[in-house]
């Protein structure tokens, strides 16, 4: 592509970024609003943040979502990394086409279908709905996102490094452990963080697969959002945005280091 921005290009970028970021910025600003009215500015206050801490059900849901994110991201990373390896490193095998399809479909499947179908599975096999059923559901769709990240790393790095290790006398298993694993490690870390944020965000799939006592944070937020816009929701949203932004910055830095060492 030819470099150099025209005035039209600059305008597109500025308008695009403003469109993407203004609504989030407004939401963050109004979380510090002293007034309960969300559209009238009544001065600066951290009132709503202090209110969050004393909101028992909300804090409990936040705790559940945090645990859920850690458990499901860890499992999803193991399965997703295996999926990426199977599709890039093991050559042809029976059922490879089907596995590639099963690894792609959950990425684009409407959540409502994934949620409903998993719920029906849990009912048929008689699994009580709660924390673990949501965890299974989250692992299922987030592992495919992990696979995308790990696989893009696996196909982009120089295969001759592995071959050189084998030529120098390493067994394939040792070459894998000493060469391949260190190279894909940053992608695996980034995959874990992506799976974690996806789990933290999910409303629809959790609503279908959750049970009593396992109300996640997005489910709690949704039930309040339905009643209208309130500064408390702005405050909890701002905190979530802050957490996610920090996580994404960490991923970007991790991947950057990966690029400079790879």
């Amino acid at each position: 592509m030819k470099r150099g921005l025209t005035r039209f290009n600059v305008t597109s970028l500025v308008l695009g970024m403003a469109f993407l970021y203004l609504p989030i910025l407004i939401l963050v600003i109004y979380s510090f609003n002293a007034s309960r009215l969300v559209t009238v500015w009544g001065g600066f206050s951290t009132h709503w943040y202090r209110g969050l801490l004393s909101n028992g059900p909300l804090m409990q849901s936040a705790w559940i979502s945090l645990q859920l994110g850690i458990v499901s991201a860890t499992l999803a990373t193991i399965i997703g990394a295996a999926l990426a390896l199977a599709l890039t490193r093991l050559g042809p095998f029976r059922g490879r086409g089907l596995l590639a399809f099963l690894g792609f479909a959950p990425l684009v499947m409407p959540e409502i279908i994934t949620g409903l179908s998993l719920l029906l599975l849990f009912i048929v096999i008689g699994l009580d709905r709660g924390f673990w059923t949501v965890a299974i559901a989250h692992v299922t769709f987030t592992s495919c996102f992990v696979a995308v990240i790990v696989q893009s790393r696996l196909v982009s790095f120089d295969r001759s490094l592995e071959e050189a290790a084998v030529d120098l006398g390493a067994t394939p298993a040792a070459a894998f452990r000493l060469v391949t694993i260190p190279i894909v490690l940053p992608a695996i870390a980034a995959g874990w963080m992506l799976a974690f944020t996806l789990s933290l965000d999910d409303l629809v799939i959790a609503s279908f697969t959750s049970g009593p006592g396992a109300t996640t944070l997005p489910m709690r937020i949704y039930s309040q959002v339905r009643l209208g816009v309130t500064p408390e929701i702005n405050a909890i949203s701002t905190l979530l945005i802050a957490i996610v932004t920090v996580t994404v910055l960490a991923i970007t830095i991790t991947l950057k280091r990966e690029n400079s060492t790879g």
Partner: protein
Amino acid sequence: MRMPQRGPDRGRIAIIGLPSLWLTVFFLVPFVIILRMSLSDPASAQPPYRPLLDWSQGWAGIRLFIEGLDLENYATILTDPLYASAFLTSVRIAATGTLLTLLAGYPIALAMARASRRWQPFLIALIFLPFWTSFLIRVYAWIAILEQDGLLNQVLLAAGLVSAPLMLLNTEIAVQIGIVYTYLPFMVLPIYAALEKQDGSLVEAAQDLGSTPARAFWQVTLPLSLPGVLGGCILVFIPVMGEFIIPDLLGGSDMLMVGRLVWTEFFSNRDWPMASTIAVMLLAILALPIVIGQRRAGVGSMKP
């Protein structure tokens, strides 16, 4: 490409077996169950559907079970105007939304591809950052903007552009804004990837031969980016067809899209078979785009 020598067989079996088993049990099998549920009838019992398979009766039980399955729900969907209109509304809104996202996304992708190499990773991160932020929160953010006494109306009134507040929230306009807003990254990135790969000398050659920049764009740049455009459109159209949160929060109570219909049938009406039937029909509509999507943007070709 493969390993010079294959790894030990046990490792190979584990690496293929683990994701295969997981995705078969928790992704493939559930679709068989949803298919079976769509052939059942609702019942006011626990569980709320008929027929149930009674193993204790042996073959007679299995025969009774199979005889109890029927296509009634599909007939209802095809004949009841409520369901037909929900599907038509979804297709129309998803198609319009995809087109609007394309119109908003293409200029951004073009500008990103033309930016200097040093800036590109930063721009990609900026486009993708909102995608990581909760979908629910991003849709929620628009409620305060689009409300009757919301910020947009305040600005429009103050600027004297309108004399009375516009009705924006709970309209299709709000839904389309929500779609463009939340799905923009999915459109921008595949188009950007296609544009980025293009050889700049092609446009230069066209211009050297007397083409205006505009004509060079229409005859060289745009046609060469069409695979990215198709990829982006598929990545937007498929999830929007099943979208629940956007129509629910921004569309008002009479905005009936398929995703919302599944939710209502399941949670409010407790009609599991009908919810499953709608899901199966939705999947049938999306099967072709999903297969094309996998061919074009399958795992591995899409970089984060």
